[in-house]
């Protein structure tokens, strides 16, 4: 503990603050707020009631106005801290409000009504997590089906992406043939073509193939990514050619060289691409929205869209379900990130 304190209070200028100490702290805290702030806001807001979400000024924690059950009323009444005309304060429930005048009653003595200007009262608030934001969509919204569709699309697309891209990268990095560099250039060049340009032709292809409203229609157009090919190729270039020569001498077929030598040694790059692919496919919205029009085929991202109506956006559900959809991506990242730094390809050589 003392070590942590002395570490945190360490300064470049010895006892005095150096300007770089200040800059460092500002930078670090600012960065933390910018990067982590929205995530915290999202998680906390997902527990807010619709009223709290629209409250101004907005709050960080999910506050709700305390309510009290009063004899003679069917519904619980909101509780306020009221400043009475004689200067004393009391906790009273609001019976009704007309313009700027609220009719307040004492919950213990519901017969007596006090009229108070709304400026003279403050709601009694408490922190409460509206877990119904999470539970209700599970009951009304076909969450599990959307989740399954999303998982299927993500997993299949990622597996196929890894296989297809690593094969292309293997050929482009370890074989010498005419036009190899041109092919790479063309593949990387497709990075410059935005999805919007190819959406219509892609749609007609998918439609002609009968993959409309089919999850494979979402998966197949996305599996060959220039980024993936380029990333894996650059990594495979670092695998020494002597290893491949050795494997050839060891009677390995080209497939075995790919499968048993090159692929295991590319694990760090494959992990990076797997993370990218999972995040891309999981968060993909536009293309699934185009291909999938039947609600049973919706992925989570498309399914969430039903909460955003033309006139009414159910923010509390959207936020809660966004948190749920974030969890798998975060888990995948936590699980795979340790592979990224593990460079094993060169450890068998001098």
């Amino acid at each position, binding site marked *: 503990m003392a070590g942590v304190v002395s570490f945190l209070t360490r300064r470049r200028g010895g006892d005095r603050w150096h300007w770089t100490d200040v800059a460092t702290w500002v930078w670090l805290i600012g960065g933390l707020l910018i990067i982590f702030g929205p995530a915290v806001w999202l998680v906390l807001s997902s527990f807010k009631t619709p009223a709290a979400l629209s409250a101004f000024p907005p709050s960080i924690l999910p506050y709700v106005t305390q309510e009290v059950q009063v004899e003679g009323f069917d519904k619980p009444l909101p509780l306020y801290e009221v400043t009475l005309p004689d200067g004393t304060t009391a906790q009273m429930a609001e019976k009704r409000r007309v313009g700027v005048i609220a009719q307040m009653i004492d919950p213990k003595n519901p017969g007596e009504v006090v009229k108070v200007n709304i400026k003279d009262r403050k709601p009694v608030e408490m922190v409460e997590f509206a877990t119904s934001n999470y539970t209700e969509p599970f009951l009304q919204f076909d969450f599990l089906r959307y989740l399954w569709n999303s998982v299927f699309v993500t997993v299949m697309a990622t597996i196929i992406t890894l296989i297809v891209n690593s094969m292309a990268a293997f050929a482009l990095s370890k074989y010498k043939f005419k036009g190899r560099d041109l092919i790479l250039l063309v593949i990387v060049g497709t990075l410059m073509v935005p999805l919007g340009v190819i959406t219509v032709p892609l749609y007609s292809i998918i439609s002609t193939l009968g993959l409309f409203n089919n999850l494979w229609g979402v998966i197949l157009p996305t599996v060959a990514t220039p980024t993936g090919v380029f990333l894996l190729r650059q990594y495979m270039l670092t695998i*020494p050619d002597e290893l491949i020569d050795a494997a050839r*001498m*060891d009677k390995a077929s080209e497939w075995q060289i790919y499968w048993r030598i090159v692929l295991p040694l590319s694990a760090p790059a494959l992990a990076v691409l797997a993370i990218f692919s999972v995040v891309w496919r999981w968060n993909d919205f536009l293309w699934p929205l185009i291909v999938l029009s039947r609600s049973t085929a919706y992925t989570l991202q498309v399914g969430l869209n039903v909460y955003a109506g033309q006139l009414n956006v159910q923010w509390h559900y959207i936020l809660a379900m966004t948190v749920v959809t974030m969890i798998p991506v975060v888990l995948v990242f936590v699980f795979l990130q340790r592979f990224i730094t593990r460079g094993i*390809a060169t450890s068998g050589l001098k």
Partner: protein
Amino acid sequence: MGRITLEKLTKSYGSVEILHGIDLDIQDGEFVVFVGPSGCGKSTLLRQIAGLDKPTSGELKINGKLVNDVPAADRGLAMVFQSYALYPHMSVRQNLAFGLENARMPKAEIDSRIAEAARMLEIGDYLDRRPGQLSGGQRQRVAIGRAIVRNPTAFLLDEPLSNLDAELRISMRAELSALHQRLKTTMIYVTHDQIEAMTLANRIVVLRKGNIEQVGTPLELYNRPANRFVAGFIGAPSMNFLPGSILAVNLVDTVVTVLGEETLAVPRPAETAEAGEKITVGVRPQHIRLAGPGEDCIGAKVTLVEALGAETVVHARVSTGELLLAVLAGQHALSAGEDIRLTFDAKDLHLFGGDGLRIAGT
């Protein structure tokens, strides 16, 4: 059986020809060393034999069978790479088994071969470790083990010792030599280190710029180098070359003068040279000694003395400016700047003509 024959083998990369027609016949059980300076094509030649590259023209035969179009895997050869090229993600055992599994060998046979190789190379203790956890010498043994388990027709070794430290290199050299004695399999060994070549080889192939300069046993190359290049390359420190000329060619000897200072009768008659011809005279540093009083000699000024105890290496400059290196047996009280008188025996001289080739007959 492991007889390898090369006939007029050439290799070009694009328009650049690396090998210019190599003819070589390697007998079964022979230990042949390809030696030469870097860039001479020795590794390229080995890759052609291994099948990792295809020769541009010429014929390559293993046991009399043309193998130009046979893939590397089916030539029955095993190769040890300079970087060892062990599969880093596999254990030592898996490294050894990989080639055998690919050949669909029964599991029991694989195990017995690995056990045999492990016993022979003393790598049994770390069969379950990864290459990354081994030292350089251990990796070297594993790399050789991977070749041995294949039970190949011939071993191809591409500078296998160059990544080891000097001490380990000497002991591994002895082990390799012992291994060859025991296995009696053809071995082709590539190195740029002439000491490795001299100690290991039955026959040495000296290569330069894609041509074979000379093929012969280590002592043939040392005693009768075919040209100035081989003479300078084989032997350490390398041979001294001094200008000279032929005074007379007799029936039993050739009389030459070195630097115009010393006249000697080399006891071998030159066949192709005539009196008056300018030649280059080669003499090994070990054959130079201090001249006794009254002896015919070459005068030189000492520039550097390296006293090694058992011998003294003397760097000296002769009157015409050539640097002369002499390895004198024992210890000598010499110092830089001193004038010394050096001489050598006529029988130890190597005579090279203007074209750099050894003068026939001498």
